């Protein structure tokens, strides 16, 4: 049991703060916002990390800027704008909704809609054709039940098909 608990403990995600900056905040609210911002801002140098994760000197500079701006009393939007004017939309892990990103934000819903539409269409068609074949299912002759199949066949092919099907029913 002890071992089980111990091994389960290893599965716990260790959300350790990768960087140790000694920032003194004049207001605890700044500190919360500081960490929130650092998590949504992407480091331009090491591109798959946010600036809180990254050890790059540039990320440290950016953290420092975030700290400075918060202490100056700037809003979150102002901090984000500051970063975007310098590094572009790239720094945002959560892209803004604008004409450039509409496809990104709403594209999946549109595709989902198309998918649902196609499924409904197909199932509707299937049901319709199923009820049609049900109605026309009166003669046991194998050639006429394949009526849709031999529509495009030449007389020789139709004859061959008939022969093959009869062979099948003979055996």
């Amino acid at each position: 049991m002890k071992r089980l608990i111990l091994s389960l403990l290893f599965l716990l995600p260790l959300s350790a703060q990768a960087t140790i900056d000694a920032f003194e905040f004049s207001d605890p609210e700044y500190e919360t916002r500081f960490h929130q911002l650092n998590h949504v801002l992407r480091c331009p140098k090491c591109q798959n990390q946010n600036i809180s994760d990254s050890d790059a000197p540039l990320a440290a500079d950016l953290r420092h800027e975030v700290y400075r701006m918060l202490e100056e009393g700037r809003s979150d939007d102002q901090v984000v704008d500051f970063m975007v004017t310098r590094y572009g939309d790239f720094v945002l892990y959560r892209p803004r909704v604008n004409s450039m990103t509409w496809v990104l934000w709403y594209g999946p819903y549109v595709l989902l809609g198309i998918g649902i539409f196609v499924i409904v269409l197909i199932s509707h068609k299937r049901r319709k054709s199923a009820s049609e074949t049900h109605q026309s299912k009166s003669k046991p002759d194998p050639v006429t039940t394949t009526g849709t199949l031999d529509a495009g066949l030449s007389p020789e092919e139709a004859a061959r098909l008939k022969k093959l099907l009869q062979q099948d029913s003979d055996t």
Partner: protein
Amino acid sequence: MSKRKLVVFIPLLVFLLLVGFFGVGLYLDPRELPSELAKHQRPVPDFTLPSVTDPSRIVTQDDLKGEVSLLNVWATWCPTCKEEHDFLNILALEQGVRIFGINYKDDPVKAREWLRRYKDPYQLVILDESGKLGLDMGVYGAPETYVLDAEGRIRYRHVGAVDANVWHKLQQVMASVEQEQQSGEGL
């Protein structure tokens, strides 16, 4: 029948579309960020910083104006900067290209030593010890080379070493900026 035939081709069309997307994607470098400043042709951000070679001299953004020129961000801790330095020397000292330097987050003593040892291709080297100017310009990796127009606006950015290929591209940008500004003056 013909409607059916078209439906059959839809997967092929989707496939070709994806091939197109991925094909283009193969040739894009995800590490290369477009420069926001170059995109909007913004001027070099305001700064007041000393010169590396003469710390008593104060340099501002106005010193970069006047002619189409290059602005090179470098540091002694950056190996690629060493790699491109000889090429910059050729451009500046042999071909007379106007190049300004930003010594980015570096030790000015080392920077002066570097310029003495490897020659100095720069008209002026701005001492950006804190990296604040670099940050305002959106620098994310030295070396970076910018094309500035005569009004000191940023027109183009290259991230990485300048070599013959890159210089070819920079030259084209500089020529078109020059032409644009000349025709602007003529009006």
